[in-house]
C-alpha cells in the first residue's frame, strides 16, 4: 500500500528531480530528494572556505617565533625554542620546528602567516573572545549571528548545507545565520537514521513535511530535521568518490580534514567548512604538549593541501586557522602561559603575496604584558569575504574594515 501512495506523492509535487534520482536513492528519500541539488557531471567552480579554530588560545609566540628578539628569550626562560631549531622565515621570526610540514607550502607561496592579529580592548575570556571572533564584534543580536553564517545567508542558494562543521561539538556561533541552517557531522559514511531500515516508516517521512507547527522553536527544529534527512540522502549518493593517493596522518584532526577533502571531491555544494581543534589553553607544562598540537595541526593541513592538489582543487579552496587570542609574553610559574591578546592567523590554498603578512608586534611595547595587535582580524575577514567569496564585507561585518592585501592573483 505504501508504494502506491508514495508514487502519488512524488507525482503530486511534480518534482522531476526526484523522479530522475529515484534510481540513485531509496524511495524513502523521495521527499527530501526534491530539495537537494542535481548530481551533475560538471565539476563545481565556486570557491570554498575551510576554517579551523584552535580552541583555548594558541601561543602564537611559540608558533611564529620572534627568535631574533632577545626579549623573547628573556621572558620565555623555560619555554623558548632555541635559535637553531626555529625554521627561519627571515631574520626576525620563524616557525616552531613541529610546523615543518607547512614549509613546502610556504616555499610554493601557498601559505601565509598574518602577524599580530587581534582587536582593540582585548578580552581575555575564552568565551567572550571567541564570541567576538565568531560574530565580528556584532554582539547586539540575540541569538548571536556569526560572520560565516551571515555570509552564507548571502551566497547564491545552490543547494543545501552551504555551511558544514565536521566534528561533534555544538555548531559554533560563527556559523549561525538568519536563514541558513548550519549542518554538522562527524563521519559522512554513517550519517543516517536507524528507522530507515524499517519499511513501515516511509509514510511518516513523507507526511511530516507539510504539518504546520505551533511555535518558532518547533518550526526551527523541524527544519533541522528536514535538512538532516536531505544531507543524509545526499551523502550516501556521493559516497563513491574516486580514491586518491595522499597519505593521511592518523590524528583526529587529519581525519576531519580527510572528510572535508572527500566531500570536496564528491562535489558537495558546501561553501564553508568549519573544524575545531582543542587543547591550546596551555596554562601549565606547555611543552611538549604544545609542540604535539602543532605537529597534529601542520601534519593535517599539509596532507589536506596535498590531497587538494591531487584533486586539481588547490585554487578553489582557501583555509584559515585562527585562535581566540595569543598568550602572554612572560611565561608563568607553572611552565605555562596565560591568556594574552594578539596572535597569528594562518592561510593556505591559493597563491599569496608574501609568506608573512603584516608586521610582528613589538615585544617592547606591550599592553598589560601582552602583544598589541597590528592587524584587526576583521580586515582579514574583509579580504576573504570580498576577494575570495565575492561578497560585500561591510554589511556582514557591520562596519568598514580595509581588506588586507593577501592574494596574488585576485582582488
Amino acid at each position, binding site marked *: 500500500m505504501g508504494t502506491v501512495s508514495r508514487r502519488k506523492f512524488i507525482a503530486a509535487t511534480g518534482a522531476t528531480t526526484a523522479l530522475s534520482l529515484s534510481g540513485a536513492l531509496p524511495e524513502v528519500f523521495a521527499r527530501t530528494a526534491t530539495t537537494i541539488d542535481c548530481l551533475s557531471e560538471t565539476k563545481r567552480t565556486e570557491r570554498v572556505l575551510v576554517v579551523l579554530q584552535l580552541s583555548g588560545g594558541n601561543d602564537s609566540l611559540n608558533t611564529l617565533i620572534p627568535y631574533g628578539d632577545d626579549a623573547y628569550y628573556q621572558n620565555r626562560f623555560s619555554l623558548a625554542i632555541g635559535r637553531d631549531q626555529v625554521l627561519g622565515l627571515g631574520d626576525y621570526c620563524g616557525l616552531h620546528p613541529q610546523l615543518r610540514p607547512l614549509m613546502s607550502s610556504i616555499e610554493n607561496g601557498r601559505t601565509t602567516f598574518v602577524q599580530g592579529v587581534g582587536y582593540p580592548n582585548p578580552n581575555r575570556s575564552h568565551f567572550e573572545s571567541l564570541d567576538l571572533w565568531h560574530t565580528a564584534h556584532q554582539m547586539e543580536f540575540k541569538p548571536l549571528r556569526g560572520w560565516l553564517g551571515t555570509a552564507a545567508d548571502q551566497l547564491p542558494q545552490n543547494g543545501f548545507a552551504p555551511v558544514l562543521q565536521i566534528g561533534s561539538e555544538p*555548531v559554533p556561533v560563527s556559523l549561525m545565520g538568519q536563514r541558513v541552517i548550519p549542518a554538522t557531522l562527524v563521519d559522512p559514511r554513517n550519517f543516517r537514521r536507524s528507522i530507515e531500515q524499517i519499511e513501515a516508516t516511509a509514510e511518516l517521512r513523507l507526511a511530516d513535511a507539510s504539518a504546520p507547527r505551533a*511555535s518558532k522553536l518547533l518550526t526551527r527544529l523541524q527544519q533541522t530535521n528536514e535538512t538532516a534527512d536531505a544531507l543524509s540522502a545526499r551523502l550516501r549518493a556521493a559516497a563513491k568518490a574516486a580514491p586518491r593517493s595522499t597519505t593521511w596522518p592518523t590524528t583526529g584532526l587529519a581525519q576531519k580534514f580527510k572528510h572535508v577533502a572527500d566531500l570536496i571531491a564528491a562535489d558537495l555544494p558546501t561553501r564553508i567548512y568549519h573544524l575545531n581543534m582543542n587543547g591550546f589553553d596551555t596554562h601549565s607544562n606547555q611543552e611538549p604538549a604544545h609542540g604535539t598540537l602543532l605537529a597534529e595541526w601542520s601534519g593535517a593541513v599539509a596532507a589536506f593541501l596535498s590531497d587538494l592538489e591531487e584533486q586539481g582543487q588547490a585554487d578553489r579552496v582557501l583555509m584559515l586557522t585562527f585562535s581566540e587570542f595569543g598568550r602572554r609574553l612572560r611565561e608563568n610559574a607553572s611552565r605555562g602561559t596565560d591568556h594574552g591578546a594578539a596572535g597569528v592567523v594562518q592561510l593556505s590554498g591559493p597563491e599569496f603575496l608574501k609568506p608573512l603578512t603584516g608586521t610582528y608586534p613589538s615585544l617592547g611595547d606591550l599592553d598589560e604584558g601582552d602583544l598589541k595587535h597590528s592587524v584587526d582580524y576583521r580586515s582579514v575577514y574583509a579580504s576573504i569575504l570580498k576577494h575570495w567569496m565575492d561578497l560585500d564585507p561591510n554589511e556582514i561585518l557591520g562596519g568598514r574594515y580595509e581588506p588586507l592585501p593577501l592574494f596574488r592573483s585576485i582582488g
Partner: protein
Amino acid sequence: MMNVRREPEWFDLWDPQDAWQPWEPSKTDRWDFAKTAHLHRRAGFASSWNVVQEDAKRPHVEVIQGLLADEDSEDAARIREADQNTGQILAAAGDSRRLAAWWLLRMVHSPEPALERLTLFWHGHFATSAEKVPETNLMWRQYLSLRRLARGPFRDLVQEIARDPAMLIYLDARDSRKAKPNENFAREVMELFCLGTGNYTEKDIRELARAFTGGGIRNGKFHDNRYQFDQGEKAFLDYRGPANRSQAIDAIVNHSACARFIVWKLLRYYVADEIPREHALVTHLATVYQDNNLTTSVLLKQIWSSRLFFAEACRGARVQSPVEMGVGLLRTLGISFPMEALADELRELGQLPLFPPSVKGWDGGAPWIDVRTAILRSNLAYRIVREGRLDSQLQLPSWGRNDWAVIVGELIQLICAQPVPAELQNSLKQVAEQTKDDDQRRLAAVIGSLATLPEFLVC
C-alpha cells in the same frame, strides 16, 4: 548594557509581579495529567504514567514540596544506601566513565530525581571534567558535595568549590603562590560561577587572585599554605581589605549581580532557554533569592509553583538536553538499558556527566539540536526501545490491547510536551501496524519515528 535586538518571546508578555505569583487551580484551569507531567519533566527527569497519574490526584503544592525533600520511606533509604555504596566502589576503582554511567542509573531510579537534576545543574555550573582530573575519587567527592549542598545557600556551594580538589586541579589552581598568583580560578569565580561578564574588571580578577594564593592540595585534600598567602590589602568590586579565600568569596556572593546571575541560569535550566540575563523576570526573582540568603530550595519552590511555570506556552519551550532525553525515556517507559552504552551515546550527543566540554559547562538550548544530533537522537530513541528490556507490563493503560491509535495517543501525552499534529499521529499508528513481529518492535518503530519529530525534542 548594549541594546540587544531580539524577537519577542512568550515570556515577554508576562508582568514579573504576576508571573511569579503562585498558580492556583480553577474550574477552567485544573491540576491535571498534562500539568503534572510538565512538572515532572522540568523539575525531575519525567516520570512513568502511574506516577504522573497518582500525582495528578494529589494537591499540586504537596507534589512540589515532595520534589524538594528526601523521600521518607524505608525503600528510599535502602536505594540511597545501595547507590552510595556502588558509587563509592566505582570511585575507588578509578574509572570516571563508569562513574558517569552509574550517575545516569541513579537519575533513572532515584527516589529524589529532582535532587539529581539539580546536582546536574550545579555540576554544569561549576563544571569540572574528569578528562583533566584523573583521580576519580575526587570527581566522586565533588559530586557528593554538590549534591549535599544543592538545595541550600549558594554561598556554601561556592565556599566548598573553592576548596574542592577536583576543581583546583581542573583550573590549574592548586599551587598559586603570592609571588605569582594564578588568575584562572579567580577569573572563573567572577565570570562563570558568581557574577557573569560585565560585572567586574580585569583588575578585579588580579586582585581576587591574590586572595586565593596559598591554596593547594595535599594528600588529596585542600591545604592552605599560609607562607604563600598574600596578606596584603586587596581591592576588588566594592571590597577593600586583606581578604582571605573565605572572606573574598563572601564579598563576591554578597554582590548584587550574584543573585541575578544564578537566578538567570536556573531559569534557563528550569523555565526557558532563551530568557535574557537582564530580563525583568530575572531581576524580580533575584530579590526573592537575596531575601532568602540565596537558598536555592526556596527559589525553586517559587519557580515551580508559579503562574509562568504552569502557563500553556511554557510547555515545550525548552530543548531537552541529551541526559534529559535519555534518562527521561527510560523513566517514562520503564525500560532497562545498559548504562555504559547510554553513557557512550550521550557523549556523542554532547552531554556526558563528569565530562563537560569546558569550564562553562553545557550551553544548552536550541544549539543542542543540529543535523548530526537530530539524527543521533532519533537513533538513540530507537535503540533504547529496540535493545532495552521492557517491563513485562509497560505502564500505559492501553498497553497489550493492540489498539495502536490509543497507545500512540498515550505515548505522546506521556512523552511529548507539545501535541503532535493529528495526521502524524495517524502515521505513527500506521508505522506500528505495518511493523512485523512483536509489540516491542512496534513500540521501537513508533518511538524511533516519533523521535524524528520536533515535538520529541522539546520539554
